C-alpha cells in the first residue's frame, strides 16, 4: 500500500482520499461525496477508454445515477467506488460496441469537417503511446488503463472488468507485448 503512488493517481482507490462515506448516508449525500472525490478521475478513465470527453462524461454520469439507484445495496464507500469503476468500464464497452456498429454502417464525414470531439481526441492521441494503445483490443486496453492509469491491483482490475485474475495477467502481458512491438516498429 505504501509503494502505490497514490499522490499521482488521484482517487481511483477508495482509501484515505475519499474519507469516510458513512453507511447511514442517504443516496444523495453519497453521490455528492463520491462526485467530489472521484468524478474527475472517472471521467479521465472513461476518456482513455472511449477517446471522447463528452461521451466519457455521459458514461460517468450514468454510472452515478445507477449507483444512486442501487445505494441500498451498496452502503459502503469501497463497494460504491468499485461499483462505479465497473459501471464505467461496462458502459465504455457498450459505447465502443455501438461505435463499431455506427462506423460500419454510417457514412464517414468529410475530412474538412471535423467533429466537435475531434480536438479532444487529438489531444488524447498526441502521445505515440496512446496512439499505440488505441490499436490494442478493448480488453487489453482496459487492463492497461486500469493498471497504469488507475494503479489498481489485479484483484481490483478483475473486479472492474468482471474477469479473473489470471485473465487480467494474460491481458496485461499480451497488451504489453503488442504495445512494445508497435512502439518499436514506429521507432
Amino acid at each position, binding site marked *: 500500500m505504501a509503494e502505490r503512488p497514490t499522490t499521482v493517481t488521484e482517487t481511483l482507490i477508495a482509501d484515505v482520499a475519499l474519507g469516510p462515506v458513512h453507511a447511514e448516508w442517504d443516496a444523495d449525500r453519497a453521490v455528492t461525496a463520491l462526485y467530489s472525490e472521484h468524478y474527475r478521475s472517472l*471521467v479521465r478513465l472513461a476518456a482513455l477508454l472511449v477517446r471522447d470527453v463528452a461521451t466519457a462524461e*455521459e458514461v460517468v454520469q450514468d454510472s452515478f*445515477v445507477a449507483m444512486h439507484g442501487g445505494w441500498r445495496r451498496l452502503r459502503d464507500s469501497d463497494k460504491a467506488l468499485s461499483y462505479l469503476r465497473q459501471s464505467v468500464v461496462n458502459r465504455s464497452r457498450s459505447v465502443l460496441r455501438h461505435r463499431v456498429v455506427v462506423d460500419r454502417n454510417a457514412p464517414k464525414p468529410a475530412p474538412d469537417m471535423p467533429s466537435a470531439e475531434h480536438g479532444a481526441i487529438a489531444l488524447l492521441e498526441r*502521445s505515440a503511446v496512446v496512439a499505440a494503445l488505441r490499436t490494442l483490443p478493448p480488453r487489453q486496453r482496459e487492463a492497461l488503463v486500469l493498471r497504469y492509469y488507475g494503479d489498481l491491483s489485479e484483484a481490483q482490475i478483475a473486479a472492474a472488468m468482471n474477469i479473473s485474475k489470471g485473465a487480467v495477467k494474460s491481458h496485461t502481458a499480451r497488451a504489453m507485448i503488442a504495445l*512494445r512491438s508497435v512502439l518499436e516498429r514506429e521507432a
Partner: protein
Amino acid sequence: MNTLNRDYDEVLRRALRAAAESVEPSGDGLERIRARLSGPPLLSFASAAAWYSDGAMRFTTWATPAIESTVKAFRSVFDRFKPGGTYYRQSDRRFGWLRPLAAMGTAIFVVAAGAFAIMTLPQAISSSGSSFTIFPWTQHSHPGGGSGKSGLAGSGSLLPGHSSSLGPSGGSSTTAPASAKCKSKISKTGSATPSPTISTSTSPSVPISSSPPVSVSPSVTPTPTVTPTPTTSGSASPNPGSAGTPTAPTTPAAGNGVVDSAATNPHAAVMVPSRSSTPTPCPSPTAKKKSSPPLT
C-alpha cells in the same frame, strides 16, 4: 529484460497520465446528475447506445443470412425463367413447344372460367334471394301464374318495366287477373293480416284485406300476358288471346291462380303463407295443378 519492462511501464504510465490530465470535465456534472435523478428516467446516450448496438448486432446477425438467402432464391428463379437463361436454353431443344402451349391453355382456361362465372352468377343470386329478384329477365314464365314469380317478381322487381303493380293501373299489364283475384280472395277469406305483396300488386288506394278484388280494385283487369296458356279444363281459364275477358271475377279461378303460382314458385308460397285457413278451390287451368295440395 526486467529493466526494459520497467521502462515500458514507466513510459506507459507517464503517457497515460499526460493524456488523462489533458481531459477536463465540465463543472456542471453534479447538476446534470441531480437533474437526472430528480427528473423522469430519461434514456441516456450511453444506455441508448448500448441498447441500440446490441439490437443492431442481433438484427444484423439474424437478418443478413436471411436476406442473402432470399436474394439468392429470387436470383435462381429469375435465372431459371428468363428467356436467355441456362435452363431455358437447355430445355428449349426438347420442350420448347410446351411454353406457348401452356400459355394458350392458361388463356383458354381463364376465359372459360370467366364466362362460366358470368353465366352462373345471376342465377345463383336470384335463387338465393327470396323476395326480390335482381335479374328478372333470367326467370322463366310459367303458365297459369303469369310470370314465374308473378306474386313477387312482379311486385318487387327493380326494373321499371316489370313493376306493374305500383302504377295507377294496378298492375294491369303483367299481373294475372286470376292470380290477383285469387290472392285477394285468399286475403279476404284468410286471416285478417294483409299481405304486403298483395296490397302493392292490386291497388295502393284500397285496403286489401277487406276489399273484394273484383269490385273494388279496378286494376284487376285481366290481361293476356298473365293468363295461362295450357288449359285443360277450358272452362275457367282465360284464353291468352282474349284480352279483357272477365273470367276471373266470376269463376273461382282466382284462388286457383294463387295455388298455381305457389305451386310453381316456391317464393310465392313463402310470401303468401297461411292466408287461407280454409282453402278455397280455385279452378286451375291445368288438371295437374288442381290436385296440388292447398296452401297451408
